């Protein structure tokens, strides 16, 4: 990210020097004030969903979700480690709500716990893929921004988002099973793509 930031920044700055240098500072300030507006929209959205999540946690809904996810996680990650499994469950449920910030602490703990287990090579990769492609039930930040910008129907992206993330997770899991469990020739590539998409 550092390299990309500095390259793009310098490229823009140099380009602006040729076009109209007086716009440089105003562009920077303009950008920052935009981000402040954006933060207000996001703060509103996070407040609502984190509030709801706390109610879930206190009423035991979160624990129920983890219990539901656990057998699936066991089969997927091929591990019996208690700590890893419970961290994974919490991590996945927070990710599904699109609150990446809440998912991160559990993800880190799960990665550490998995690293100590026997099957670490495979299960770490699976954790990576599941997190990186995570299924989104409710993309809370996106909905928050759309509401703030006055969308007529802010939730009409729910179904396409759900389907497309389900597909990406499906493809990811299928490919991980295919390539990372034991070595197999790469010509099976296409087939697994279909299977992953079909399964969801």
């Amino acid at each position, binding site marked *: 990210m550092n390299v990309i930031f500095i390259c793009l920044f310098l*490229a823009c700055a140099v380009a602006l020097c040729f076009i109209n240098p007086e716009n440089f500072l105003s562009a*920077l300030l303009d950008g920052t004030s935009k981000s402040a507006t954006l933060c207000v929209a996001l703060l509103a959205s996070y407040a609502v969903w984190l509030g709801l999540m706390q109610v879930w946690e*206190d009423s035991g809904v979160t624990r129920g979700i983890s219990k539901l996810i656990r057998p699936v996680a066991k089969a997927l990650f091929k591990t019996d480690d208690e700590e890893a499994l419970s961290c994974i469950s919490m991590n996945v449920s927070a990710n599904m709500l*699109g609150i990446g910030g809440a998912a991160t602490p559990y993800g880190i703990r799960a990665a550490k716990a998995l*690293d100590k287990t026997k099957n670490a090579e495979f299960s770490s990769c699976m954790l*990576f*893929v599941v997190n990186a492609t995570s299924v989104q039930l409710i993309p809370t930040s996106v909905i928050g921004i759309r509401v703030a910008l006055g969308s007529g129907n802010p939730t009409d992206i729910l179904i396409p988002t759900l389907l497309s993330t389900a597909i990406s997770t499906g493809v990811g899991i299928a490919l991980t099973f295919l390539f990372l469990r034991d070595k197999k020739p790469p010509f099976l590539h296409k087939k697994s793509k279909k299977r992953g998409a079909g399964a969801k």
Partner: protein
Amino acid sequence: MNVVFALIIPLIFILSFLFAIIKKVKIYDSFVEGVKKAIPLIVSIFPYLASITMLSTLLDVSGLNDLLVTWLSPVFSFFGVPKEIAPLILIKPLSGSGSIALLSDILEKYGVDSYIARCACVAHGAAETVFYVGAVYFSGIKRKRLTAALIISLFAYLIAVVVGCALCLIL
């Protein structure tokens, strides 16, 4: 059909609160407790948001954004993805807050309910920040195959973007 989607969120709240009442949870206290966590979360992402919005405004003003989009448009239109969301697709695997900043730019520019905007929303949700997950979750963990996991994740992400944009046309 749209009414059904619009009902999802209020129903989630009603059901959750009813359940909490049954479980004898002090809902107000508990809700306030959760809302409190929003402030540190925002404080922690603001610096990243601000830097990336600065960069994206610079990209716009300097005309490099248009240049990038023109270069990439043949690739994207081949897959049926609107070329206007190309920068978003490229930045998403690298930075979550950065992509949120770009997303809100796109929504403002092309209208929040336009086809382009909806594609952008779906593309934004299509994957998490792949490199961030790699850097944060697995810092200090050395496993040979994690690189392969990274490539798989990126591949799955691109498929999801293509499919998501197609879905936006139908749904």
